[in-house]
């Protein structure tokens, strides 16, 4: 590279346009003013841009030149040092490519991809990962390890961009290539298990998107694929999660039986892993399915389990949820006193959590349960006529401004 530097110095004699720089740099300052996002960013001076490009070309790197030229059109913020690194790496990548050493070209491109870490340079990273993939595809010496890795990286890029389908494409290639291989990443993680995990992630995201579009059939397909991938990855935790999500999808189509099957898978795994949070969620989901099937007693059982586990793991939010659900079920079964009790508990927890929305909901539910329980007693008294009953009602009427229903009950007992 030193020859390049000295060579360009001699070339300045033949570059009479050098003093065009002054108006150019002025316009760059204006541009910085117009663009308030990166006020500190300085545009590369025109002369430096030209020098960097021209140096590449005169040393005989036309592809590197074309890339550099195209990059500098978009890439405004750069310091000479980084430009120099970019220049060198592009040149050595091209040399490697010309001599058919695609492994080296891949390494150079990957270096550049990791070199650009700033969030505004993300597109540069993407660009170089794509180049790395191209080199890796041509490199056959390592039976596809580099190609697999490049596919993983590019999949991540697309995932970041939110292009799920394209991410899926590359992850699938990654999966196929790592199938039956014992490749590991530097941290000792198996590539194939990683591929399963990434695929699981993408399938889940796709499924969630389909759920939002209310396309349940396809969503279930996606969640099923995600579940299979989670099973293959050997990570039991994510297997449980995937089963839970699949169950939820079945639940929203109304297939409670299948839903329950997957919830119990999740439940089993959570019990083995002693994951209280996951176990609680499974209990809750099963209870919900049972409730929609009309099996209220069983549903209550599961909800009580849910409440218990939430209490023991000190998850107040879940406990409050459990109480609310229990209250709801009891009021469905017209056991308003019990319902009131649960709602009251939910209210207290919500107060502790300082969650106004939940607090208000619990308060209203508790109130209405209370009222309904009083209505029951009142109706009973009205329906069976008798002097005693009328008297009871009258005495209650006189005293009701006091405590809530205690007098009435006392009267009734009497």
């Amino acid at each position, binding site marked *: 590279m030193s020859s390049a530097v000295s060579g360009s110095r*001699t070339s300045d004699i033949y*570059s009479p346009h050098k*003093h065009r720089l002054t108006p150019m740099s002025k316009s760059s300052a204006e541009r910085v003013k117009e663009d308030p996002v990166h006020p500190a960013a300085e545009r590369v001076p025109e002369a430096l841009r*030209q020098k960097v490009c*021209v140096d590449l*070309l*005169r040393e*005989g790197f*036309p592809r590197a030149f074309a890339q550099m030229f195209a990059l500098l059109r978009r890439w405004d913020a750069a310091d000479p040092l980084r430009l120099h690194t970019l220049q060198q790496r592009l040149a050595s990548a091209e040399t490697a490519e010309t001599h058919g050493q695609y492994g080296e070209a891949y390494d150079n491109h990957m270096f550049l991809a990791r070199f650009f870490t700033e969030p505004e340079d993300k597109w540069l990273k993407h660009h170089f990962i794509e180049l790395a993939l191209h080199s890796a595809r041509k490199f056959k010496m390592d039976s596809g390890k580099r190609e697999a890795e490049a596919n993983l990286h590019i999949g991540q890029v697309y995932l970041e961009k939110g292009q799920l389908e394209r991410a899926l494409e590359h992850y699938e290639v990654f999966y196929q290539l790592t199938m039956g291989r014992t490749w590991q990443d530097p941290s000792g993680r198996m590539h194939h298990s990683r591929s399963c995990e990434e695929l699981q992630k993408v399938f889940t995201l796709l499924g969630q998107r389909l759920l939002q579009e209310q396309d349940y059939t396809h969503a279930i397909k996606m969640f099923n694929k995600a579940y299979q991938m989670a099973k293959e990855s050997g990570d039991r935790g994510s297997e449980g999660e995937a089963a839970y999500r699949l169950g939820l999808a079945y639940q929203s189509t109304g297939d409670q039986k299948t839903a329950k099957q997957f919830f119990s898978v999740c439940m089993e795994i959570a019990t083995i892993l002693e994951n209280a949070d996951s176990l609680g969620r499974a209990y809750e989901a099963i209870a919900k399915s049972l409730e929609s099937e009309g099996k209220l007693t069983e549903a209550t059982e599961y909800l009580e389990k849910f409440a218990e586990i939430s209490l023991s793991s000190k998850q107040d939010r879940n406990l409050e949820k459990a109480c609310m659900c229990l209250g709801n079920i009891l009021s469905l079964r017209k056991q308003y006193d019990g319902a009131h009790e649960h709602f009251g508990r939910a209210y207290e927890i919500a107060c502790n959590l300082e969650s106004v929305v939940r607090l208000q909901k619990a308060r209203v539910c508790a109130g209405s349960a209370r009222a309904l329980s009083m209505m029951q007693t009142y109706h009973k008294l009205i329906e069976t006529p008798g002097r005693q009953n009328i008297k009871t009602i009258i005495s209650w009427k006189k005293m009701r401004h006091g405590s809530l229903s205690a007098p009435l009950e006392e009267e009734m007992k009497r």
Partner: protein
Amino acid sequence: MSANITPLANPKGVKKLCELCQKPAKLQCTRCLVTFYCNSDHQQTDWTSIHGKVCSLLVSIHTPAPFGTLQSDREHHHKETLKKQKHLVEIAHLESQRWVSKKRFQDVLPAALLFLRWATRVHGSSAVELVPAYLLLAQANIGLGSLSQAHEYLSKAEWTVMKTPGCSHTVLHQLHRTLGRLHAAMGKYTSALTHFANDVYYASEMFGLGSTVTSGGYFLMADVFLKQNKPDIAQSLYTEVANSWHTHLCKLMDGISQSSTHPEKCFDEAQCVEADQMLGCILEFEEQCVKPRPEQSAMLAHSLAMLWLLCNNYTKALEYGKKAEVLIQGLREQNRLRESIHNLLQYAGKQLE
């Protein structure tokens, strides 16, 4: 066509000089009466190069102003003359360019000199409009081997560019290309490469990376690299050139097949010959390579076929099309290229019937 004149018989203080060599003139063009030569050889040369096309225009430019009483009449006449002069400059520019493309450098000189003389008269002696004339003259001189003469013209061009702030990238690109040619001819390969690289840079700024104008610079660089005995670099440069031309020609072909009308003239004859020489040279290089790349050769043959088709030379188009077809047969996946070669052969065959 020519009449003898005797220098001694000229009015006092008036010197008639030869149009080409500035020696005392002995002949006069009888059509325009304003052009003089020292001998009939010079007259003949000037006639073929440029005078035949501008003789009548010169007459009308030299017509003396009619006796106008009104200011507006005089202004009108002045404007008309200026317009004619600009037209003359334009013709001379195009003609000299055409001779350069045909590589008939001897014929460039009279036209380019006329171009320079009239451009100076219209735009002044230090205008940037003179640069193309200097460059053409330099290129002709490089072609003729008189490098010091070329260097002189190029120095003038450089000086003019230096005096013009905010000079357009087109001019800079042309300047560097000619400078590169000069240095290459002088055997100074390193500085030639620097100039060509600058040329490519400005051309990319102006016309885009993949344009055929830019690829001209790549081609010249490849030539220098070959002289430096670096065939692999030359090959990668040739690949760039071949790709740009192939894309460009395919685009033009698409235009034809979509409009299904008779192809407009996309190139003139000289440009066509120039492109043919360039692509032919690359094709030859590819075929002589140690590691032949049939897909590259097929692409080049396809480009040549398209080029001749676009110039309405269907026989040559067929010839290269068949060559491309042969080259592509040994290859597996090249379906799109195969399809377009097939279409081209059909089209050319139909036109020949």
